[in-house]
């Protein structure tokens, strides 16, 4: 749904829509009270429909490209693994590794905040995988793998991303970053 107060221009358009709706309601009510009630229902429904069906500005834009790099002798690897992953192979010369496991949750769970079990499961996987990789630490990520990668890159400048998952997951991560992405 489009936020009618997202910007001044949006708010101005919303104001114009409300004025038109008010004129329709007053005009209909002048003719007949129940016609006015019907016009009010239609006007409110029309404005809500307009807000819902209008595309959100920028929603169709390609995802932002994030990039990072490190100096000589340093190779940072970001590992993305789904909860329950048994093992992940990382190149031997990695000097710093972060294993991020997204706390996958359903829409209802995410919206209601009932993600404790999902986060515990992700944390267990992250710590277990990190324990078997030199110079690694585990982190719990957002409920969306792509978002978890973006969040991790904000504090961890990785040179490479290793994804443990299916092709769609690898493609989703590749679509968000410019650094090399490989499949574990």
């Amino acid at each position, binding site marked *: 749904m489009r936020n009618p107060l997202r910007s001044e221009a949006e708010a101005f358009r919303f104001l114009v829509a409300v004025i038109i709706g008010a004129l329709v*309601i007053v005009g209909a009510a002048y003719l007949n009270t129940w016609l006015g009630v019907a016009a009010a229902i239609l006007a409110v429904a029309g404005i809500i429909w307009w807000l819902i069906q209008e595309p959100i500005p920028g929603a169709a834009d390609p995802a932002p490209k994030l990039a990072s790099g490190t100096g000589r002798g340093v190779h940072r690897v970001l590992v993305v693994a789904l909860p329950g992953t048994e093992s992940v192979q990382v190149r031997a010369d990695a000097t710093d590794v972060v294993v991020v496991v997204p706390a996958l949750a359903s829409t209802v769970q995410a919206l209601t905040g009932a993600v404790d079990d999902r986060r515990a499961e992700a944390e267990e996987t992250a710590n277990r995988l990190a324990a078997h990789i030199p110079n690694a630490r585990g982190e719990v990520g957002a409920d969306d793998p792509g978002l978890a990668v973006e969040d991790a890159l904000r504090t961890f400048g990785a040179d490479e991303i290793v994804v443990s998952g299916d092709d769609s997951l690898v493609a989703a991560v590749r679509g968000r970053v410019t650094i090399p992405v490989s499949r574990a």
Partner: protein
Amino acid sequence: MAAISHADHLEHEHPPEPHFSSRVNPSLLGMFLFIASEIMLFGAFFTAYFFVRVVNGTPWPTPPFHLPVYVAFINTLILVTSSGTIHWALHSIKHGNVFGMRAGLLLTFLMGLTFLITQGIEYSRIGFNTGDGAFATIFFCLTGLHGAHVFVGLTILLFMTIRAFRGHFTPEDHRGVELAGIYWHFVDVMWIVVYMTVYIL
């Protein structure tokens, strides 16, 4: 070499950017919460209006009182026009027209002030007070609540106008005008609803 290493070090040791992982953008969530709180606030008074007028069947306005519909209509035109001027102000600064922004903000402030003064004069001459029955109470609550919002909007506009005349806004950086505009349009939307329900219908 040492300088390069130091630069690399600095590149990776910058403070982390704001971190959020919610599916809802924080600023969007904040605006939704703001709208929700305002809807509940005005909704409470509109509920009282509904019960007084529809459920109880109280005549609106209760005889022998009359509402100054035409004065309020002129006031409505002033407020709607002021939304146009602040829209012009923002459009101007986006295109580098500083004079247009200053003139737009000043006109918006003056029209908002005119609206508030006119409403004050209307109150003083309307012939009834808050204690003259449920109709009068609801009338003053709804229009007064909106007047309070106009006062807040005027305060914001005053600061933005002063800042505009001190050269604070540029085509790239004018968030203050943008936010003042959003608030002012919201106040205008609420007045359209109040005017329609209280004065006309």
